[in-house]
């Protein structure tokens, strides 16, 4: 049988690009406080186009990135910021590098979206280099798939020294006697499973869990009101008719199990 082939065997790791001290100093000043408008050139290195759509959403009047003088330009020769989206496919490596070389110094490189940061959902494809920083030095990483327009504005504000970084690397180490409480121990396990299963059938994976949790929390709440009254109150609070329908179904599941127990 043939030996397995891994992506790293098929691709070479490119050398990092070098930068003179002078340019690095200029770039440092640019990153700290730019004090003028900035021109952005967008390089799509093989994403799904979701990121492009959000970038254009960010320059619409609702989010209006031009308030900060951020303007999208059609040529890298005008650019202060190069905005790389996409996972950097093999075919896009050279165009990506050409755009970088074409932009005048000093330039800021922003890596946009999960794809641009690490390759994201496409990280283990055979034709993917896995992130902008594999080919050019990156100054700011904006996570998201795609980043929302507000996240885009935050990322740019950070790149231009207007806002500070919030996310920091953390490492939690398990302390002595850490113990996790059981979830809803007062609800019979079989009922919990039945409710969660029904909610997921009705609402799909994530919302199913969220809806089931809200339902179980109302069921387990230590209130003087009767169970039926509490669940009716939960249903009455909900404005989304689809969720109301699902709560109705979950109450039916509950009733069926209670009747079964009684008989």
């Amino acid at each position: 049988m043939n030996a397995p082939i891994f992506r790293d065997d098929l691709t070479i790791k490119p050398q990092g690009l070098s930068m003179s001290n002078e340019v690095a100093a200029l770039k440092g000043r640019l990153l700290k406080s730019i004090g003028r408008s900035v021109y952005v050139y967008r390089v799509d290195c093989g994403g799904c186009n979701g990121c492009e759509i959000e970038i254009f959403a960010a320059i619409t009047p609702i989010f209006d990135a031009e308030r900060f003088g951020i303007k999208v330009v059609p040529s890298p020769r005008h650019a202060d910021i190069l905005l790389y989206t996409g996972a950097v496919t093999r075919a896009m490596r050279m165009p990506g590098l050409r755009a970088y070389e074409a932009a005048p110094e000093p330039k800021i490189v922003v890596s946009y979206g999960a794809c641009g940061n690490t390759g994201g959902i496409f990280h283990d494809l055979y034709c993917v280099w896995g992130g902008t920083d594999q080919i050019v030095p990156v100054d700011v990483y904006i996570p998201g798939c795609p980043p929302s327009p507000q996240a885009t504005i935050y990322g740019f504000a950070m790149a231009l020294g207007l806002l500070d970084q919030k996310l920091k690397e953390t490492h939690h180490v398990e302390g002595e006697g850490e113990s996790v409480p059981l979830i809803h121990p007062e609800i019979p396990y079989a009922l919990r499973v039945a409710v969660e299963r029904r909610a997921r059938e009705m609402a799909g994976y994530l919302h199913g869990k969220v809806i089931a949790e809200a339902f179980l929390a109302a069921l387990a709440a230590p209130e003087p009101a009767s169970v039926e009254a509490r669940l009716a109150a939960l249903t009455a609070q909900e404005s989304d008719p689809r969720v109301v329908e699902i709560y109705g179904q979950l109450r039916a599941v509950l009733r069926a199990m209670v009747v079964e127990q009684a008989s």
Partner: protein
Amino acid sequence: MFKLLKEIFRTGQATALYPFAPPQTIKDSRGKPEHDPVKCIACAACTGACPANALSMKTDVAAGTRTWAINYGQCVFCGRCQEVCPTNAIALTTEFELAVARKDDLITRATFKLAYCRTCGAAFSTLKEVDYVARLLGALAETPKEAERIRAHAEICPACKRRLDVEEMAQANPVRQMECL
């Protein structure tokens, strides 16, 4: 001109003020998956479910630890981790201010202690997970003695469990059902 001004006043301001005002996010917008390491039992359900492999679990037997990590740069904010987490230790929030200048700041880690099999001494799980499973199944037991037996079983590695099962079966001396056919 007058018409234009009238239109402008009628429309009001469309632009969101962010970043000069608090962000407007809706309840269901998908942002940073927030992990509570105290509630996490290191079961690795989320790392198996994560479609982008943003979550990882590494076991270091020599150090006796298992380290969970999330890379926010790789996460696609799908919420699969929230769905599968048995203890609700990880859940999406609406936090979106995640941009960083240093790539390592995208990573959050949590380290847990390994559990060792009480029969053969091999590392097979984490202390918190074994404890959680024993309490979860123990709550279903009808007698305290049964709960104690469940806890004892939870603290044994799969290989030893298989061996013990065979021994228990042999002791019980089951009648062979097939012979009379």
